[in-house]
């Protein structure tokens, strides 16, 4: 019998408890809400002809803030219903895992906003696959602290972003500016809504 043995057991217990504390709030409402916001924003962007890189960045930054605020409200309601704290250790780990990729995406957007020429359609097109890939990477990282499906969802964004990037690289000239909003709406809105509907029918009820 030694202290090493007891200390190792305590360490193992701590590690296993941390691994077990997965983020288990119901994801269907959050992903469906984000999907609807994204699709609606894609339509609004298309109709209002938001057609400069700066306006594109401003518009989609506002959409991201709206989606984030909506997700916050939904998750907070779930936490209140389950009588749990909102900023729980699993929530904190998920946020920490997502932060680096989202930060890089924010900086890339800010650079485009600050430096792109007013008519730089190529740079605007290029930011979409970059955002998709970074968002996918953020989801994949969060997937280590969430149910397994999130990693696959992250990969969908990464692969989608890669395909869009390849398409843009091999096309003689980029599509019209207004299609950037369609791409954003389809990628972020469409994928979220599809995944949200899938979760709605498969996620365990009363997940907390």
């Amino acid at each position, binding site marked *: 019998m030694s202290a090493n043995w007891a200390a190792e*057991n305590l360490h193992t217990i701590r590690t*296993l408890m941390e691994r077990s504390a997965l983020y288990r709030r119901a994801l269907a409402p959050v992903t469906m809400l984000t999907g609807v916001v994204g699709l609606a924003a894609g339509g609004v962007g298309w109709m209002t002809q938001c057609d400069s890189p700066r306006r594109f960045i401003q518009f989609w930054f506002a959409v991201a803030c709206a989606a984030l605020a909506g997700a916050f409200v939904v998750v907070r309601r779930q936490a209140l219903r389950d009588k749990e704290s909102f900023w729980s250790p699993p929530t904190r780990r998920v946020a920490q895992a997502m932060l680096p990729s989202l930060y890089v995406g924010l900086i890339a957007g800010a650079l485009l906003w600050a430096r792109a020429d007013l008519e730089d359609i190529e740079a605007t097109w290029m930011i979409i696959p970059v955002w998709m890939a970074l968002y996918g990477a953020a989801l994949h990282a969060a997937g280590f602290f969430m149910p397994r499906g999130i990693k696959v969802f992250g990969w969908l964004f990464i692969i989608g972003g890669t395909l869009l990037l390849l398409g843009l690289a091999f096309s003689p000239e980029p599509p019209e500016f207004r299609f950037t909003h369609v791409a954003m709406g389809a990628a972020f809105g469409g994928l979220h809504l599809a995944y949200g509907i899938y979760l709605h029918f498969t996620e365990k009820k009363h997940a907390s």
Partner: protein
Amino acid sequence: MNPEPFLQLDRVIHEKGRLAIMSLLAASPELAFTELRDALEMTDGNVTTHIRTLQEAGYVAVAKSYHNNRPLTTCSMTAAGRKAFADYISLLEQIVQQTKKP
């Protein structure tokens, strides 16, 4: 060194596999049988045996239900299990503290 804490360790929990199951269940309201099996990389048979032992000791409750038309077995820690687990950890801490004393 006083051997008392070591002798008091709960033998049901003290086994490596069961300790791992108790640790996972301590941090989660409930876990599916498959989640336990995957997290611990154990065989179905191993998990079943350990769960049965823990269930017989009154430390773990097992519920069977259906999810998406598939059978779902979930395990959760009982109040007695939570107390036994807390006592076990407290004894481990005592052992560590004892050997730190000069």
